[in-house]
């Protein structure tokens, strides 16, 4: 997995915006991650403690908002959470479905002092 690179990116983004806001300390970072974005929260936290050590983000709390995956049937518009290994619509059985949620992978905001 690539949590190290991801954690470094999160830190870079947070520090850049904190500097722009003339902040002295970053207290929390609010991250939005969809189910289809493959990231392990605990690993990000582990790398964070190492990478953020000498920065104003040291000790900041990482808050992960997880967005569940969602598929929507293009036939009956029913929205559902995909089962493990079957993408058919549970309502009408249609095979024509689209992914409508779960790709999120962003830093939404930071809390600073």
């Amino acid at each position, binding site marked *: *997995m*690539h949590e190290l*690179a*991801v954690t470094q*990116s*999160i830190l*870079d*983004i*947070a520090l850049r*915006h*904190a500097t722009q*806001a003339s*902040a002295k300390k970053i*207290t929390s970072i609010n*991250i939005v991650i969809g189910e*289809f*974005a*493959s990231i392990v929260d605990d690993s990000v936290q582990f790398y964070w403690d190492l990478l953020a050590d000498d920065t104003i983000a040291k000790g900041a709390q990482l808050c992960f908002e997880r967005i569940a995956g969602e*598929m929507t049937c293009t036939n009956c518009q029913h929205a559902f959470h995909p089962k*493990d*290994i*079957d*993408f058919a619509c549970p309502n009408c059985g249609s*095979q*024509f*479905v*689209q*992914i409508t949620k779960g790709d999120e*992978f*962003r*830093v*939404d*905001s*930071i*809390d*600073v*002092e």
Partner: protein
Amino acid sequence: MTIRVPIVENILNANDHLAEQNRGRIDSAGVFSINIMASPGAGKTSLIEQTLPRLKDKLRVAVVDGDIATSIDADRAANAGAQAAIQVNTGGDCHLDAVMLRGALEQLDLTQFDLLIVENVGNLVCPASFKLGTHKSILIASIPEGDDKPYKYPGMYRGVDALVINKIDLLPYVPFKMDYFKHGVEVLNPGVLTFPLSAKTGEGMDAWVDWLIGQVKAM
């Protein structure tokens, strides 16, 4: 006092930005470029090995090979006729990223080539997240991997521009429900261009090679 600073920035923004720079560099040299991704053993290097002789005297090809260690793949590409073959060892990273490709591009005089083939690290998860700046992303699925892979690795199947289904010569010998596989693909990536082929027997290779040549000519 605590203040909330709104950001809303994609976490891999920095990589995406570098990928755009790579694209600019590739575009300005008039080269068509592909990023080949697949699980280990799907036949990335074999496909490249079988593609290169078919492009001989038609296209000048550079290959960039990403791997955790060794130069085996770049050596195979060079032996198969690549005019340049550069090995990028990621030193443990599970994917190539835009920085690594930039380093490889710096070693190439791109104006001397028509086609740039980037072979990513064998992995069905991470490479999908890291744009490189190439024009098209190609996924190689192979029959022995099983027909459930689109369902298990949706991120990879969603993001690609073309799908090669390799090792079709093994269809009679392994359980692989093509309808089930194709349904998963269709949901994730409707209408994606598909090339069923066997790099071993050569079946289906012509359609793949003709497509590559057509893409280069359209540049």
